């Protein structure tokens, strides 16, 4: 059963878990002067996880374990890389903030725990295992959101996130149980064999509940309302991390469930996905337009981007499947670099959009980086976001159904709709004069380093699109 191969397949998760425990233990026993040691160990853990996953991916590791319930293929490893990457940056960005609160071991352990859950999640082929992994990733994230004891919004956001999250989990579990009841198995390959032809009402209800549960986790409209409060309340590094890593993993597992578990029901769920995608794009962008708080603005922006990615799911049929899977892979990587960067800038500048006024004059470097992130989120070429959106359009055109054309149209309209709020920040930074008596620039150093690295990655993303799409070709999902 548990062979060396299994051990190898689980190595990224094992490494991350071991490091999370080490961080916790060292934090308990080390003196208060060794905050740097704790942060260094956590960062080392993320790097080690990334390296292990990268080596497995480069070596072409492929296999399924634990009675075909756990699969490690290129697809899963790719998403583990995204999770480890964002965990690393979240840890680096959290060093100074968590050092000040004095709870850095606990905070960094929570980040690594979420990473473990998210990495397990992308490999699950068993619906109950999937549920366990989702909870493993979600429960520490409630604590992450509520971690900032100095701000009341943090507790409020954490509470709202917890309540809606628990409800989402129960809906998801209900869906899983119904699917299990209808198909007689929780394993995706068995489910696929039963879900053919016309589906029974029980199976349909199961799919609807399952998708709704996922929609909660992905903050897709109309299940998105926890997002702005949670992201506004959470410490910046946590908000940045939660908007990328668990989301990437959830998109990945949704892709796996739909493609491996119910390929024959594709006409049904692509239609649902198209509807969700269009609704989510509009809701995210229209609400983001009204925000003056940059955290809330980015929270709604992340709702909108969930909509764009769901647009690729609508194209998962016919000739569009390959490209649609590529679109999800590329979009998530593109989103990771630009969105992490945009969140980190909040730590450098402030969360009120007025605090960005005149940044170009006072701190041109930061202003240019934030400008790049905003332009990337709009989808201006050659920045990273452009490639994600372009791939969704590719997939939509290849799938060539009425639903995907509608999605493509909505994506184009929404890209333009999103200009005012992203470029509102650029306008404040470049066109306005600094507000006198504004907040002093906060934590620099390592956060600034992260922002610069991510800005460069956002700008040069186009160079890596070719290899990324080639990777998607052999992702093993198709």
């Amino acid at each position, binding site marked *: 059963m548990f062979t060396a191969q299994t051990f190898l397949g689980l190595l990224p998760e094992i490494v991350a878990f071991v490091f999370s425990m080490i961080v916790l233990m060292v934090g308990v026993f080390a003196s208060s002067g060794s905050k740097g040691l704790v942060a260094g160990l956590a960062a080392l853990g993320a790097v080690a996880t990334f390296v292990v996953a990268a080596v497995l991916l480069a070596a072409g590791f492929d296999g399924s374990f634990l009675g075909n319930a756990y699969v490690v293929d290129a697809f899963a490893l790719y998403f583990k890389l995204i999770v480890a990457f964002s965990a690393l940056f979240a840890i680096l960005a959290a060093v100074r903030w968590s050092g000040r609160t004095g709870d850095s071991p606990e905070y960094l352990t929570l980040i690594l725990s979420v990473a473990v859950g998210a990495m397990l999640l992308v490999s699950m082929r068993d619906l109950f295992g999937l549920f366990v992994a989702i909870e493993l990733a979600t429960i520490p994230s409630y604590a992450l959101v509520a971690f900032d004891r100095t701000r009341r919004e943090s507790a409020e956001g954490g509470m709202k996130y917890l309540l809606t999250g628990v409800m989402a989990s129960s809906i998801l579990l209900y869906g899983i149980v119904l699917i299990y009841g209808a198909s007689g198995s929780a394993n995706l390959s068995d489910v696929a064999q039963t879900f053919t032809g016309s589906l029974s009402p029980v199976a349909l209800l199961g799919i609807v509940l399952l998708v709704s549960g996922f929609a909660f986790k992905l903050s897709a409209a109309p299940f998105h309302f926890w997002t702005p409060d949670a992201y506004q309340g959470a410490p910046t590094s946590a908000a940045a991390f939660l908007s990328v890593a668990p989301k990437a993993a959830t998109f990945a597992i949704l892709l796996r469930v739909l493609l491996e578990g119910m390929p024959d029901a594709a006409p049904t769920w692509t239609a649902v996905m198209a509807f969700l995608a269009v609704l989510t794009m509009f809701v995210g962008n229209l609400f983001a337009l009204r925000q003056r708080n940059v955290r809330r603005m980015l929270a709604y922006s992340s709702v909108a981007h969930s909509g764009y990615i769901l647009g690729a799911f609508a194209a998962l049929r016919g000739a569009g499947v390959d490209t649609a899977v*590529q679109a999800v892979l590329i979009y998530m990587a593109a989103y990771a670099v630009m969105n992490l960067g945009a969140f980190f800038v909040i730590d450098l500048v402030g969360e009120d959009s007025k605090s960005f006024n005149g940044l*170009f*004059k006072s701190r*041109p470097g930061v202003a240019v980086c934030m*400008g790049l992130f905003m*332009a990337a989120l*709009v*989808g*201006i*070429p*050659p920045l990273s976001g*452009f490639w994600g959106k*372009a791939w969704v*359009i*590719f997939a939509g*055109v*290849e799938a060539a159904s009425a639903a995907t054309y509608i999605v*493509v*149209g909505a994506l*184009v309209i929404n*890209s*333009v709709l999103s*200009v*005012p709020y992203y*470029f509102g920040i*650029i*306008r404040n930074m*470049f*066109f306005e004069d600094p507000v006198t008596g504004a907040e002093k620039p906060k934590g620099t150093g390592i956060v600034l380093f992260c922002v610069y690295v991510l800005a460069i990655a956002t700008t040069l993303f*186009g160079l890596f*699109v*070719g290899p990324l*799409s*080639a990777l998607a*070709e052999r992702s093993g999902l198709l």
Partner: protein
Amino acid sequence: MITTITIFFPLLAAIAMVALPRTADSRTIRYTALGLAAVPLLLALYIYFAHRGDLGAPSLTQNLNWIEALGIGYRVGLDGLGFGMFLLSALLTLLAVVASWDVRENLKQYFAILFIAELGMLGVFAAQDLILFYIFFEITLIPMYLLVGIWGDEHRRPAAVKFFIYTFLGSTVMLAGFLALGILSGPNFSIEALTGGNLPRGAQVAIAAPILFGLLVKTPAVPLHSWLLDVYVSSPTSTNVVLSGILPKLGTYGLLKVALPLLPQGVEPYLPIIAALGVINIIYGSFVAFMQPDLKALVAYSSIATLGFILLGAASGNALGINGAVLQQVTHGLYSALLFILVGVIAARTGTRNIRELGGLAASMPWAGALLTIGALAAMGMPGLAVFVSEFMTIMGGYVAFPIAGVLAALGIVLSVMYLSYMVRRTVFGPVEKPEYEGTQDASPVEMAATVPLASLLIILFFFPGLLINVQRPAVELVLAAIGGS
């Protein structure tokens, strides 16, 4: 390789500008920028003199695989269709640096952003891949937004935002068309491979609609033009040079380089509409220009009118009209840059751009007045200046394809004579309107350096239009072969 070097040199120039030491005074900054801006122009001139004979099919090409699965590549090369504008982009960027006297704050950043815009402009006219074309097309957008938004006049912010949203809407819609075109025909995004149009007629017609929409917003064709006035009026002079000289041509060039040859059957049903829009541009632009009290707004609407001739020529689908359109792109850039710089000079001296408050400038500013008259004569399409040649060709070509449109366009010339001669009479000649204009200084050496080359080129190209037409003709013939015209 030389193409790539020319396109990306401005990026180095932008980095160099930012890297200048904090202590550098404005004189050093300006001369450094001038030197850096000269390099792409010299490279483009070298290409002109060394390779002007073989610019039919794209030459000096470079092909690198980028995203193999989708047939996207880094494909650049120069052909006669785009080379005139390639050269003009380098020239006008240099002149924009010269004409940047009204930019006083944050000079380094100004030039850096200007150079990024130049990178996009040079790239568009050299791109031989649809995705690359789109990327360069969009790279110009943010720099222009910043140039206007940071260094423009007091109304700059809404103007910049309107400009950005409007043209971004156009280009995003166009992108959807590009992606559909590339995906459905392969996937392949090489402009050369797609030339001639392999798709069924219905698909071509459907794809042509978003592409034409995007290009016509950029041009702008008249019902889609409302972004233009505010941004032209609010820009600093040197941004105007690029904004009016090059940016509209991204739209018309896309029409000639992408829409016509890649979707010949798809564009066909829209050609009468494009010709009609061209005529509307000419007539509407002229009438509205007549009513402008602001000198800059007048020049902006005159520019809209002159762009109509390009649309008409492109829509004609014959050799005369398309050659005229390609040439008009360059001549329009020359004269509109000339007029915008002179408007800037006059406004700086007199403190106003209101035509009614000006008058009798010839007395104190003979050189500036003479140059303004040359620019206005060029805008009217008078013989003796190169705009005459290109407008005449587009009208003749347009007349062959759409006789009524041709006649109306010729009528437009009469209208332009009316408002431009009014403008010249009110500003340059007549009695001196206000006593304080008596002692105004004539154009300074720097201002002469920015304007005399443009005026000279307009005259030279009238007598020797072959300098450009011979370069572009082989490429135009390839377009005609693709659309099955004569």
